[in-house]
């Protein structure tokens, strides 16, 4: 539900005067960082987010299989889980990660494969195992995966397989790239609009500010979802996956920038009156210089915070659009499209592991929200 967030201007309360004195000499960045680290939740989240983006970048390497590698014999295969210790009947112990094989039969009446994990069969796992040659990020030729089964064509479905016997984990990892980048690209675009427009309107104020405010008001007065639907439905429908992908991000950011603009403007209004800006003006520094050299750095952290807080919205929007059949479509692999596969009773009943994208989305969004909150609190301790 879109509740317009009230962006307060940092007020420095009387009573904290004594506290402020000692910290006053620290650099903005160091101070922010120190405060940030106290916000444990945010600190943990930071690492989670970093992890997510690492996965996104090195998807091909981390994912044990390719997103489209299928195996008819393992449709809807349940999760294997990874085991580390094995005991043979003769009582001898084996250490090291492995997965069990499956026993499969087809139930012709119910039309499905019935899987039973076969504890006898063990497929040992290894790191940096040989694989089909592939190109990391599309240009670095490689033929090793982070981990996988030692025998090349042993089944590996750590968190289960989808309806075509594709490895859900691998698809999840590949989907991460699209979903996270869609969020990032979208936000970066909004940021560009937001900072430039919001910045100038906040700095100059006056009629310019007024005009911008009206525009923002207008854009906000357009009901989001129909707008998405409309624009998404309006995309040339013979566009390829990639074009659609960027079109969608653009659409998302077109509507997303207003919020950022508001934040930035708010900060600018607050800063404009601060002494160091006035000082700079008196020194006859150019507006551009003032904005870029003096003002922007002084609330970089706010921008970062606002940005992190905007990404989750984008991700959710992407999934929602896919759900409505207006966003990305299979065969593109994104969290949204993966969830599309999961959104039916048959999956809930028969293959709940296909809901895993949902969990990942939740984790990612939680992490980013906390990170964003942490950054904001750190950037502006007295304001919030």
């Amino acid at each position: 539900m879109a509740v317009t967030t009230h962006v307060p201007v940092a007020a420095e309360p009387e009573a904290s005067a004594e506290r402020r004195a000692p910290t006053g000499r620290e650099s903005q960045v160091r101070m922010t960082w120190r405060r940030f680290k106290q916000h444990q939740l945010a600190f943990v989240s930071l690492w989670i987010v970093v992890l997510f983006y690492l996965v996104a970048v090195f998807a091909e390497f981390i994912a044990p299989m390719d997103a489209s590698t299928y195996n008819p014999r393992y449709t809807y295969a349940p999760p294997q889980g990874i085991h580390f210790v094995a005991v043979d009947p003769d009582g001898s112990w084996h250490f090291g990660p492995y997965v069990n094989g499956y026993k499969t039969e087809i139930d012709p009446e119910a039309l499905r494969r019935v899987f039973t994990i076969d504890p006898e069969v063990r497929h040992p796992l290894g790191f940096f195992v040989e694989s089909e040659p592939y190109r990391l990020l599309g240009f670095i030729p490689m033929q090793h995966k982070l981990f996988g089964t030692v025998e090349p064509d042993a089944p590996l479905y750590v968190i289960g397989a989808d309806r075509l016997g594709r490895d859900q984990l691998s698809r999840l990892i590949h989907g991460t790239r699209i979903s996270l980048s869609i969020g990032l690209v979208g936000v970066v675009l909004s940021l560009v609009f937001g900072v430039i427009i919001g910045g100038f309107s906040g700095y100059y104020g006056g009629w310019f500010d007024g005009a911008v405010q009206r525009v923002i008001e207008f854009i906000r007065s357009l009901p989001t979802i129909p707008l998405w639907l409309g624009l998404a439905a309006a995309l040339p429908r013979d566009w390829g996956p990639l074009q659609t992908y960027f079109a969608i991000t653009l659409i998302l950011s077109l509507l997303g920038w207003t919020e950022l603009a508001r934040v930035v403007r708010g900060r600018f209004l607050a800063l404009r009156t601060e002494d160091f800006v006035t000082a700079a003006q008196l020194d006859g520094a150019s507006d551009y210089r003032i904005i870029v050299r003096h003002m922007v750095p002084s609330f970089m952290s706010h921008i970062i915070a606002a940005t992190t807080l905007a990404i989750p919205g984008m991700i959710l929007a992407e999934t929602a659009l896919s759900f409505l059949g207006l966003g990305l479509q299979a065969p593109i692999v994104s969290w949204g499209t993966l969830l599309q596969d999961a959104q039916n009773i048959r999956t809930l009943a028969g293959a709940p592991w296909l809901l895993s994208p949902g969990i990942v989305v939740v984790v990612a969004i939680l992490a980013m929200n906390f990170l964003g909150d942490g950054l904001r609190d750190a950037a502006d301790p007295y304001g919030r």
Partner: protein
Amino acid sequence: MASREEYDMTYLFNPRSRRGVHAFRLAAVMTTAVALIAAPAYAQQQAPMLDALVEDGTLPPVEERLPDNPLVVEPVDNVGEYGGTWRSALRGTGDNAWIARTVMYDGLVRYNRAWDEVIPNLAESWEVNDDATQYTFHLREGLKWSDGTPFTSADIAFAVELVQDPDYPVGGTFMTDPGNPMTVEVVDETTFTFTFENPKGLLLDELASVNGSTLVSLQKAYCSQFYPPYNPEAEQMAADEGYEGWAFMMEDKCAWGQETQRWANLDLPFMNAWVVTEPWTGTASRVVFERNPYYWKVDTEGNQLPYIDRLEMRVSESTEEITLMALNGEIDFTDRHIATVANRPIFFDGQEAGDYRLGTEVQSRSTSLVLQLNLNHPDPEMNALFNNRDFRIGLSHALNRQEIIDAVFTSQGEPFQPAPRPESQFYDEEMAKQYTEYDPELAVQHLEAAGLTETNGQGIRLMSNGEPVSIAVDVISALQPEWLDILELMQLQLAEVGIDMEINNIDRTLFYDKRPSLDFDAQVWAGDGGLDVVQEPRYYFPANAESVWAFAWQAWYNGTDPEIAEEPAEWAREQMELYDQLKASGDPAEQERLMVEILDIAKEQFPLVGVSLVPNGYYIAKNNLRNVPDEMKQAWLFPTPAPYDPFQWYFE
């Protein structure tokens, strides 16, 4: 307007036309015989819910409501009991097809349950002249609309008149076929004659098909008030009502056949077993039908049909909701939307809890997916390639069909090309199985024979202009998720032999928009015409607009889209001539011979690549719902389950 959801639609008559045509005389004789026995040998019974109404005189007694010789229906298992509500679901706003499949199917004639005969219905008999240009029908004496007024030849004539009115847009029926104009002549109350310019061998099948309802759905007494020729005020009235013209008001008040608006107007009289009592408006969350007290059929003991009192259809945009309803035993019979391959396991498991059973539906479609390369491709290079038989054979051999069957259809089905199904008398194993074995080497040989010898860096084969072979395939995954799955597998399999395939998962409108511009490499659809070979020859030769693979050729054949119409290849022209002969001929044996010839050419030319035989579908029926056959044929022209006489189903 017509249904959005039907993808298995085919049109025109039944699979064994020769027997169909026999049926004319035979059936005529038979029914008169039936009539003799069935006449008031014993007092007719009626549903208890009507007794009160008859008591207080709002309804005449059942004898007066029934025609002189009601149609006697042989129950599937046994004579049933009155009462009960048949609950089902409509998927959102565009699902009028479900009503067509349950309530509306009751034309002049109908198909028998085996789908091999046209039998009497409203018409108790008919005669056809020898060159099949003139048909005379005899309605039952004393048929009545659901409002109690008589149903006569005049109503038929009115329907024809209205449908033929150029200002009134009714989509292609035999009445508006520019290729073969027809006229109607009323002989008397119960007798009328259709006269055609050219032979119309297939009329009875069209009348027996789902489209037959159009002719018997417009009551002259009611509908003529909106029609200027009968009511000079009609235009004025429409204007007052805020319509932009009489036609708009007519469409709205007096919609024909299976038009959705038909169930939005409670005043509209029906000839069907149930009449709508809760209208289907844009805001309705359910549509309700109740028994038509003037229905004109009885069971073998003379009980007026239908047995079931009410039909309750939930309007739901959400298939998941419908699925849960079915699992929860809140749906008494359905075979639509939710009865998919993917859902089979949960419905199977749910039988006990939901107290329902799964029945078998034999599909009329042959192969699960037809890859229709655009043989009229505007780009000469592609055009040449697609028209190269070796290329198509190469593709076919490159497909590992068993893998697809295992993955997508849980090993149900067998490799199958677009060809008549084993159940059809046109079944030709060679045609169905040719080039289906998975053999990459052989595939490569054929591809190279097609001139694709060079490959580029990614191992993609190059056309003579040095361009890599890349086929963009259009698919509407919304209609059948399986299609997308199959394509995703094909994509990888074709890559193995150096053919690049791109999947365009697109919206239906665009799917159709692209055709007239010939602006596509290939489209996929299901293998219609597996049982109704003669009626739906779209994959056997460029027969109609659904023959996407040769759209320009069919345009030439049907005289549509002149701007793109293009003279077909020799072999296709030959087929077209043969089919023309077939349509003209009244003799079933001749028709079969001609069709076989057409099929042989198709087999020889191999224009289309298929995947696997469509496995049987299933229906979901509550355990206490009786007189439902365990196995049904599933088609559109034969609108399952209507031909299995839902009016004689009952709850025990």
